């Protein structure tokens, strides 16, 4: 038997989603093969790596996670600037923790103004995430959509219980959305079908919900791998959206990440790399060293 390289080609591709607008806009997705398989297909866009910014001062962060941002952690605009200018982030993720109903429960209007300030000051693509509380997120994200109309933010998490209102506002104001379903390919598909009845599929990014290394990472890994398989191999067009993973939040809450700086960075970087290998197209990271490492390794 002579050897012929067993290359696999797929006649379909994952949709390309544009984040942000203007000269700093960034595309993710668009690939027609599995991650890093440039030897048998085309991957037009490097995976997107976003750095996380909170809209309140971090509570209870590991020392070494806070250290890179200590001087700017009280102001989201300064924080965002440092991420871009010093740490080379091309995408940011603004987490609206001030709106947590169990915490400060900030009003949607104020919060939206903060988002607007960040957008205006930097104009890099911006992901805006609520706290995952359905009703509150709905109000907040709708207000954010309106305040930042035309800026093509990526808003989330959009859930089964609140997708109608949020997606409608996103559509009206020209934003993309993160559609989140809990660790289940069937539920991901179901939400996409519901959304695509009125919302453009090329503005949807899916989040199958992430678990950190040591805390269920392999479940996320396998779900992301199967989403890619359904999209590329089975050609299921409701599974051809790029995949998003919020690594930062999950990894840094583990006790392992708090044991030492090196271990914390590696906890986040290993989880990130694992999801990229599965097919994630966009990640949210916390530590600038993890960002730098991943960027270097995927760019070579």
């Amino acid at each position, binding site marked *: *038997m002579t*050897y012929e*390289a*067993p290359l*696999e080609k797929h006649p379909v591709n994952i949709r390309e989603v544009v984040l942000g607008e203007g000269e700093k806009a960034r595309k993710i997705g668009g690939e027609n093969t599995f991650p*890093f*398989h*440039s*030897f048998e297909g085309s991957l037009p866009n490097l995976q997107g790596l976003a750095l996380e910014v909170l809209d309140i001062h971090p509570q*209870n962060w590991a020392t070494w996670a806070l250290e890179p941002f200590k001087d700017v952690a009280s102001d989201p605009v300064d924080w965002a600037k440092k991420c871009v200018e010093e740490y080379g982030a091309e995408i940011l993720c603004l987490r609206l923790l001030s709106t947590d109903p*169990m915490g400060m429960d900030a009003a949607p209007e104020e919060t939206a103004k903060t988002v607007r300030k960040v957008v205006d000051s930097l104009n890099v693509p911006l992901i805006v995430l609520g706290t995952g509380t359905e009703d509150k997120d709905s109000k907040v994200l709708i207000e954010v959509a309106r305040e930042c109309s035309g800026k093509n933010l990526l808003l989330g998490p959009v859930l089964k219980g609140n997708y109608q209102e949020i997606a409608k506002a996103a559509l009206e104001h020209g934003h993309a959305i993160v559609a989140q379903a809990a660790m289940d390919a069937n539920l991901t598909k179901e939400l996409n079908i519901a959304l695509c009845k009125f919302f453009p599929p090329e503005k949807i990014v899916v989040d199958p919900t992430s*678990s950190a*290394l*040591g*805390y*269920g*990472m*392999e*479940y996320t*890994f*396998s779900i992301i*791998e*199967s989403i890619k*398989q359904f999209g590329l191999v089975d050609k299921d067009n409701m599974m051809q959206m790029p995949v998003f993973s919020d690594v930062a939040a999950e990894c840094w*809450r583990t*006790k*392992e990440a708090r*044991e*030492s700086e*090196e*271990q914390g*960075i*590696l*906890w986040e*970087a*290993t989880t990130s*790399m*694992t999801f990229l*290998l599965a097919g994630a197209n966009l990640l949210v990271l916390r530590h600038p*060293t993890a960002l730098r*490492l*991943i960027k*270097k*390794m995927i760019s*070579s």
Partner: protein
Amino acid sequence: MALKGAEIMKMLPKTNCKECGCATCFAFAMKLATGGVKLDDCPYIDPEVKAELEGAMAPPMKLVTIGAGENALVIGEEEVMFRHEKTFFHEPGIAVLISDKESESDIDEKLGRINDLRFDRIGNVLKVNLLALSKDSGSSAPFENLVKKAYEDTNFPFILISENTDILFSAAEMCADRRPLVYPITGENVSAAIPRLKELGLPAGVKGHGLDELISITTQLKDAGVEESILDPGSQNMLEGIRDQTLIRRAALKKGFRPLGYPTMAFPCFMSQDKYEQALTASALMAKYAGIVVISLTEKEFVFPLLVHRFNIYSDPRRPMTVEEKVYELSRPDENSPVLISTNYALDFFIVSGAIEEADMPAFLCIKDTGGIGVLAAWTSGKFTGEAIAEFLKKYDVENKVKHRKLIIPGVAKKLKDELEEELPSWKILLGPAEASDIPKFLAEKWKV
């Protein structure tokens, strides 16, 4: 097994004579497919067909053993490209590199550190598996000393690395009873290596620049009767490693291409001098099919994440992961803290304990062994009933941990509440929230002693 029962069936006599002990030829074929019987049990199978079947039934990727006894590393015989298609069967080996150029005291210290790289995680021991001993100095003595020391001071199996074939095999002779992997076996030395490999009965660490070279070497080895090989395609970095290992596995599993039907190995230790990059490369290549990764990292901060990563990726997705049964004390609880109870399905445990710890709420989390199945299924099968829970509370002396008598049960277990109230008349049973993530809110609002 490579062949499915139905495919085997086509090649059997189909007389249903029952002389093999099975009711029908179909039954025999099924048992063959899963390894329950031997082909020899069928007295009527045509000898040519038998040979063909034996060849076809051999696993598409060879099983290779390095080491002997309880520390042996067994890799290979993988069946799928994606773990969710079934499972990955054999955890890859992690080998730590030691060079013979290092000083004796450095080597001693390193061996000590490597021996300490063992960690307990939810009842499992995670550790590195092998030592990779490398000849880098000019003469043979330092290398032989290194091998001797490693042999005497540790129980690890070895990968022996030397470009000099004679020195490689003399070192192998020193530790042959521990079945070392000899590396590299290349196009240049394979003819000389073959008799030595056969004499010592060792697996071959094959190195080729690219897949075509590997194929040429493994073909020679196989033809000469050397059955076990591990393949290094010479990948220089993570991306090449992903490509090479993916193609090798695909060729073996999807094309039945025997010359590449072996487990692979990779050398992150040579791919980057940066410790973080090396660790990331090692984890990436383990997720992407490496049977062995060789690293030069010995610090806990860099090795522990690798061990956990391997443990996660190589867990069987068909079996729920479980945690140890016990009463977990979260955020320093005292006699007034709430008591919650749930099953030992790991994912639920992480979510519940994570939610409680993140909210920094002191609590006793009772985890009952249900074989990893969730609350409702466990109740139905009798593992999480009122009686079972009452036994648990007694066994772990929960009554003496708290002053109050309130027990919080998972919100989905409505049927359990009545049962428990009868089993534990002195306890008040509180139905918790349906979602684990609502536990902190529930405790904040509803918990009063």
